């Protein structure tokens, strides 16, 4: 097919105009994209933001919003100023100076308008075990019927539950995944398939049989019972993820270790395992968070209040004080939230790599 010739002069004049059009198109596109992303993220961000502000600022027990709007009206212009400045700054020095100025103005506004509103009185539960009664009497109501444990006890229980569960899952999943990745044995393919099928079971369908089972073996109302149940639910997926990581480790280095004088176990520990640390970190974080947020099993299988985990504690606080003092309920929420948030932020780098190992299932 012949290509129609374009006169040189015509194309010459067009280049500039085409470049301008492309530039505007790019800008319009990114503006549209960002507007959309901001619009959809507002309903997601706002509740978290409100949870935090109300926990640190609520005074009257009702669902206050003044401080929320006040801080948003400072935060949003500050962020906008950062954004606009980053577009117009010509070099890194200007950029830093501008950011410093914006931070100073925003910080000052925050200090003047928001800071005086903040207080820690809603965190009364951290020092006062019987805080629901205190809160109720403050609101002029009679005391409730629920007896609360010390919040630190619930915190320790949650740590124990999530931690023990994580250690078991990480250990068993690593060993099982290594075996599945490296050895041929009858039923291997079927086992791999069933790993995923197991994950398809809605956990709620098993709650009655599990309750009876735990009752029979005498693990009802014991942390160990819930830990084992959680391990059972977490393992298939963790094994699957870990298998992907092990598959990515070349055979050669293992064989090399064997000829270098290592036993099979030494080769695993000294050569193979260090290659999959990212995978172990990833499944550990997920298991830990899963254990930390676990609610349905602890609610069903744990009865004594000394066995309460943070999720149960949160539930009963909400049950007892919702409508009495939103500030205290939010404060408990923030307290419950912080450990998993810290863990996620710290391990983010490793979690991002999980898909890399995972695809090679």
């Amino acid at each position, binding site marked *: 097919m012949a290509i129609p010739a374009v006169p040189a002069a015509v194309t010459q004049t067009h280049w500039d105009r085409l470049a301008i059009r492309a530039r505007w198109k790019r800008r319009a596109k990114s503006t549209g994209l960002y507007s959309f992303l901001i619009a959809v993220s507002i309903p997601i961000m706002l509740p978290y933001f409100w949870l935090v502000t109300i926990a640190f600022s609520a005074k009257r027990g009702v669902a206050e919003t003044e401080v929320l709007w006040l801080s948003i009206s400072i935060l949003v212009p500050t962020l906008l100023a950062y954004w606009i400045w980053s577009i117009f700054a010509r070099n890194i020095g200007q950029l830093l100076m501008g950011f410093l100025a914006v931070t100073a103005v925003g910080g000052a506004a925050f200090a003047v308008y928001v800071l005086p509103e903040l207080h820690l009185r809603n965190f009364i539960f951290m020092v006062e075990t019987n805080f629901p009664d205190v809160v109720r009497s403050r609101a002029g109501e009679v005391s409730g019927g629920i007896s609360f444990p010390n919040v630190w006890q619930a915190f320790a229980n949650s740590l124990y539950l999530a931690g023990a569960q994580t250690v078991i899952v990480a250990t068993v999943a690593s060993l099982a995944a290594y075996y599945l990745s490296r050895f041929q044995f009858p039923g291997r393919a079927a086992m791999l398939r069933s790993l995923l099928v197991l994950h398809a079971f809605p956990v709620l369908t098993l709650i009655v049989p599990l309750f009876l089972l735990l009752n029979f073996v005498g693990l009802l109302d014991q942390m160990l019972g819930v830990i084992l149940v959680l391990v059972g639910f977490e393992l298939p997926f963790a094994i699957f993820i870990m298998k992907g990581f092990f598959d990515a480790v070349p055979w050669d280095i293992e064989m090399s270790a064997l000829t270098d004088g290592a036993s099979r176990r*030494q080769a695993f520990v000294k050569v193979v395992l260090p290659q999959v640390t990212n995978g172990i970190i990833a499944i550990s974080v997920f298991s830990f968070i899963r254990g930390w947020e676990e609610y349905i099993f602890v609610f069903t299988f744990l009865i004594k209040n000394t066995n309460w985990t943070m999720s149960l504690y949160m539930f009963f606080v909400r049950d007892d004080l919702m409508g009495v003092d939103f500030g205290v309920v939010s404060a408990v929420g923030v307290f419950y939230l912080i450990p998993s948030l810290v863990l996620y932020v710290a391990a983010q780098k490793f979690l991002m790599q999980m898909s890399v190992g995972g695809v090679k299932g």
Partner: protein
Amino acid sequence: MARVEFRRIEKRFGDVVVIQDMDLVINDGEFVALLGPSGCGKSTSLFMLAGIYMPSAGELRFDDSVVNEVEARDRNVGIVFQSYALYPHMTVQNNIMFPLRFKGVPREQALPKVREAAELVHVGELLDRRPAQLSGGQQQRVALARALIKEPQLLLLDEPLSNLDATLRLTMRTEIKALQERLGVTTILVTHDQLEATTMADRVICMRAGRIEQVGSPDDLYSRPASLFVASFIGSPPINLLTGQAQNGAIRVKELSLPCSGGVSGEVTVGLRPEHMHFGDTGIPGRIAQLEPMGREILYVIDTPVGHVRILEGGSVAAHRIGEAVHLAFEPDATLVFEADTEALLPNARVLLPNGGAAAA
């Protein structure tokens, strides 16, 4: 240092027989190459020597002891993998020291040895780096140092040069050979590159589909190939093969009749090496279809009544043009004739030039 012997070795994976009836003796201090296309069982043989695979039948002997069931860690075999198989999480120093850790050598005694081994392969200044920070050639040298540091009785090289660029390959070829001569360690090189095998090894073992096709010096394999397979595998550019019918002292290939000696009859394959052919006044008529300058030589592809024939002529400037009519002559002493169905060499048979020339003799 050790003498290695395969006695009727067989290796099966399930129902698949990978090595059949392998008999081979490798003398103490010898440098041999296992040469063959991929899937011919050469790597399997190597892994049996390393102790990673156990022979299914037969006896594998180091000196005078059967080592069939001796574990890899106890064999004192150094191996360099195609991928080098360096441990990614360790520094070069720890990589090289790794085998010594299992021999119980204390660190202060191990370190000078590591330095010595590193100097031997010229990576002395890279000890603190990690494998990912090294070039392919450097990784290769580190792998070599790691294999040599345990003073192995047997050094195994699995396609050690295939991941290097052409120039580096040449350097490493010379270096490895010099190193082997200096240390006198029995060395087995596995490769699919005939040039690598013939340049480095004292003796080449050509394998095909789990069987040894021929054992001999590089010259034996080139000048007196035992079979059609060896003839076509050794030599670059590859040998020209013409299949025809032998009868009454002549071989008929399509409409061309080539006189022959040695009392041949039945279906045969004639092998003519491009480097043993030249342009002549008489001979096989043809027309030049293509020419490929290779620097020192020029490879001509000639269109003849018996198909395409390649011939190699010295000089860097082409003396002929594409389309030119030529006659191809060859040296009758360098011709090879194979029985077509057994593919075995007919050692006394020679092909002579058609009409006149050598045919008159």
